[in-house]
């Protein structure tokens, strides 16, 4: 009985979807637009956050130690830093390591290497490179180092970059907030457009709904096909949308990467194809079913 009803509801939904071809096409098209917007926002967030991560990786605070600083003192500072909640990681660069890196960077420059050889001793001090969890934390890490009175510390390079840091931090958080704001606004608009399209489609069926009720159909038997149609709209629209993104990311990916840095969008799209599709599908199906549910409720009161 239940299985029979379910089969009948699905058959009715398929038949309606097919026979109201133009209405279905219009609804699916509008939903493709909405899902395209949703997909763009997902990709924008991916691009933004991978750019943020990259920029963040490049920001650090380096503590330089005096040439005669003792290794235990340095390691003491390191362990103190690692206990801070704001610190993501601390990298210790010893004097020998610093020299090696310096030589590597200036490989082929005979003047520098011969000058170093002439000097005979290592002119570079040890240092600690500190990565914070968030750019806004650098200030407090800097303050911690200032107030700590650690022995052997030569200088902290944060002060020199402080202005740049603060600017970058505020720009990044503004971009993120703006991104979220735009997402919410566009999402709301897209939802309303799709909702109204589906409501109009069902509005044209309002008399049919009344007739079905008068012929003795239960509410769910009348409503079922409309809800399943909503699922079909979501399914077809998300399939169409996910394939529209293929050429777009293929074209845009390398260009966006060279402009913003961060990840190549096409790689993201290709690697997360299935999850991306599921995200769009979920948005589409929820939108379709919810709109149909709300729209049919009005006409089922007979």
């Amino acid at each position, binding site marked *: *009985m239940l299985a*029979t*009803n379910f089969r*009948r509801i699905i058959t009715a939904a398929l*038949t*309606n979807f097919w*026979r*109201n071809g133009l209405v279905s096409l219009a609804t699916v098209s509008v939903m493709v637009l909405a899902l395209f917007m949703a997909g763009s926002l997902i990709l924008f967030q991916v691009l933004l956050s991978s750019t943020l991560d990259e920029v963040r990786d490049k920001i650090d605070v380096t503590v330089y130690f005096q040439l005669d600083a003792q290794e235990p003192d340095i390691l003491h500072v390191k362990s103190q830093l690692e206990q801070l909640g704001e610190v993501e990681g601390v990298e210790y660069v010893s004097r020998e390591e610093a020299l090696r890196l310096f030589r590597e960077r200036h490989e082929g420059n005979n003047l520098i290497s011969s000058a170093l050889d002439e000097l005979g001793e290592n002119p570079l001090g040890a240092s600690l490179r500190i990565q914070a969890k968030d750019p806004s934390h650098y200030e407090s890490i800097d303050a911690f180092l200032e107030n700590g009175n650690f022995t052997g510390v030569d200088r902290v390079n944060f002060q020199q970059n402080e202005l740049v840091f603060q600017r970058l931090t505020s720009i990044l958080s503004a971009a993120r907030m703006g991104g979220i704001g735009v997402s919410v606004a566009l999402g709301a608009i897209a939802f309303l457009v799709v909702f109204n399209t589906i409501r109009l489609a069902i509005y044209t069926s309002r*008399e*049919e709904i*009344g*007739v*079905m*009720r*008068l*012929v*003795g*159909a*239960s*509410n769910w*038997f009348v409503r079922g096909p409309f809800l399943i149609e909503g699922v079909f709209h979501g399914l077809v629209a998300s399939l169409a949308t996910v394939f529209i993104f293929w050429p777009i990311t293929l074209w845009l990916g390398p260009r966006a990467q060279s402009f913003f840095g961060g990840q190549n969008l096409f790689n993201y799209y290709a690697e997360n194809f299935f999850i991306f599709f599921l995200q769009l599908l979920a948005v589409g199906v929820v939108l379709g079913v919810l709109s149909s549910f709300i729209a049919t409720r009005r006409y089922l009161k*007979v």
Partner: protein
Amino acid sequence: MIYFDNVSKKYNEGSVALEEVSFTIEPKEFVSIVGQSGAGKSTLIKLLLAEERPSSGKIFFESQDIHQLSKREIPVVRRKIGTIFQDFRLLPTKTAYENIAFALEAAGRDDAEIAADVPHVLDLVGLSDRADYFPHELSGGQKQRVAIARALVNRPEVLIADEATGNLDPINTWEIVRLFGKINELGTTVVLATHNKDIIDTIGKRVVTLENGKVVRDEKRGKYVL
């Protein structure tokens, strides 16, 4: 079988559609409800189908007060009442066959029953060759016969026709009235709301006359008198 107990219906203050209407319809009766436009015929039928609620009074169908029923129980009662309207009210996206089958599907009949019963009623109303036509491909008389077939297919205890011939030409009108007579002879109660004088005078069965929302006459072998 159907009992109106002191029923009144006001749509809003000062506009009274029905006023203290009481009458009984026995099983297998053929009752015509007559009156001018606005006399309350359609309201009476809407109340009987639980499309509208009465302002006061009760309506019983098989000793059940139909306005005490829950939203779930109403469809069950409606399946026992076949209804035909002036404007046919077929489902435009379904063929004649599917329109009739829908009433059975809604009632939860199995596929074998549907496959057997639909051709049967299509044959009864003389539309076997139009099964796969959509409503917009049928004439007015054919549409109304599809609607009758849909009303009959659940083997209802009552058939209600609200101005069922209002949109039809005389020949189609008579064919349909004859069909009602046949249905009644087969044991179904028929309630016919109309303002067509010729039909009433020819049928020669019980006539309930409504005027300004009140029952003014109720005669066993009535004529259309206003």
